[in-house]
């Protein structure tokens, strides 16, 4: 039973032959659609009129077209799409064309719900056209099945491209957020500062560790301040992550200080019995900065401009 399932490579771009096999679309079926195209193509515009009349009844759908020009352009693209569908020449270029539509849908944020409603509408139009043009009931039914199979393949290609593009966009956003959430900054020569805000989990702690260790390597910093005043919850796991970051920086010859430890966090650490031996801590970032300057042999001095008379 399993051996009858077509083998599909795991890469995103499945080939035309692979997909036709997966969707059980034979060359005979494609020929049936192609034969129908001679009579159907002249009627495309009537069906498109029905499609756009249906769209006009749904303001939510129409909201994706910002002008009449855009609507005209999309209608022309759709006319080409239907024409290509009826010519049923499923090549690599055909697949690429369908995937492009999915990418556009992802870019404009067209919900799959709306797209599938459109697919349903197209299907009904095609079936109606088939019934009108093919008098033999059995042949019309066979044509309907062939078109349904190819339409399923088209819809799957478009949805898959939509999902892939959305994943890509989410991944890009996630990386941007991550870069913003670990702003390791060299605030003075040899002194790095990283204020952490929000929740810390194992993935984030690993990313923080990588960012910090790379910065130490690049800047040859001798002091690193990890300010946790913005961390909402410190439990055993979070404390261990922070301690590991501190220990890893020490291995690179950089002294770490965890600042922003509130009385509540300090009580939690004691209650949980977390071993913080060898970890430098301060209650405020100011204390940690002052200590780091001291360790670097620097002293802060008030100038005249800073004094109030």
């Amino acid at each position, binding site marked *: 039973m399993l051996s009858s399932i077509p083998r599909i490579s795991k890469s995103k771009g499945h080939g035309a032959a692979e997909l036709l096999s997966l969707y059980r679309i034979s060359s005979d079926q494609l020929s049936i659609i192609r034969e129908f195209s001679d009579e159907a193509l002249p009627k495309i515009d009537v069906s498109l009129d029905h499609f756009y009349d249906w769209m006009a009844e749904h303001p939510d759908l129409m909201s994706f077209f910002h002008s009449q020009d855009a609507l005209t352009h999309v209608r022309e693209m759709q006319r080409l799409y239907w024409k290509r569908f009826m010519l049923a020449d499923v090549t690599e270029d055909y697949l690429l064309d369908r995937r492009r539509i999915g990418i556009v849908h992802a870019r404009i944020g067209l919900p799959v719900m709306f797209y599938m409603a459109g697919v349903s509408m197209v299907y009904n139009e095609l079936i109606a056209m088939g019934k009108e043009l093919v008098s033999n009931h059995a042949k019309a039914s066979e044509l309907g099945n062939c078109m349904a199979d190819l339409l399923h393949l088209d819809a799957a290609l478009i949805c898959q491209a939509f999902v892939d593009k959305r994943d890509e966009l989410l991944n890009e956003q996630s990386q941007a957020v991550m870069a913003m959430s670990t702003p390791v900054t060299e605030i003075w020569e040899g002194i790095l500062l990283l204020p952490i805000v929000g929740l810390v989990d194992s993935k984030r702690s690993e990313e923080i560790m*990588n960012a910090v260790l790379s910065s130490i390597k690049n800047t040859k910093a*001798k002091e690193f301040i990890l300010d946790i005043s913005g961390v909402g919850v410190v439990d055993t796991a979070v404390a261990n992550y922070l301690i*590991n970051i501190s220990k890893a920086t020490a*291995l*690179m*010859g950089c002294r770490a200080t965890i600042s922003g430890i509130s009385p509540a966090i300090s009580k939690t650490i004691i209650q949980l019995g977390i071993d913080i031996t060898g970890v430098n801590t301060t209650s405020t970032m100011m204390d940690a900065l002052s200590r780091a300057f001291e360790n670097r042999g620097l002293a802060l001095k008030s100038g005249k401009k800073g004094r109030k008379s």
Partner: protein
Amino acid sequence: MELKRADREDSRQSSLSSVRDHLIVNLPDNFDDHDLGALEEQVLSRLSLNKRIRGVIIDFANVQSTDADDLSRLQNCLLAVRLLGRSVALCGINPGVAAVIIRTGQDLHRDLVGQDINDVLQKV
């Protein structure tokens, strides 16, 4: 062919040198059990012959990756150094190696850590 193999093996060996009263060991990248066995023999032999050596500095600068087994073997080697009454200093640890050391919970019996040889020599 034989010559090339010998060269490769030479380049993989840990090199030993002395600065002031410290023995400096440059670890090769991807050091293995065989490298550490040879290293241990050489270091302990030098320490037993030269009583003026106060400590050993392990330079990781060439090490881009390692694993728990090799670190554990290195840890035992450094424990032997400590048992001979000498200090252990580490330097040149790369971010990836630091992360592995932390993940595997090894402390490598170190007395101090520096960014490079000069940093360690300043601290000792």
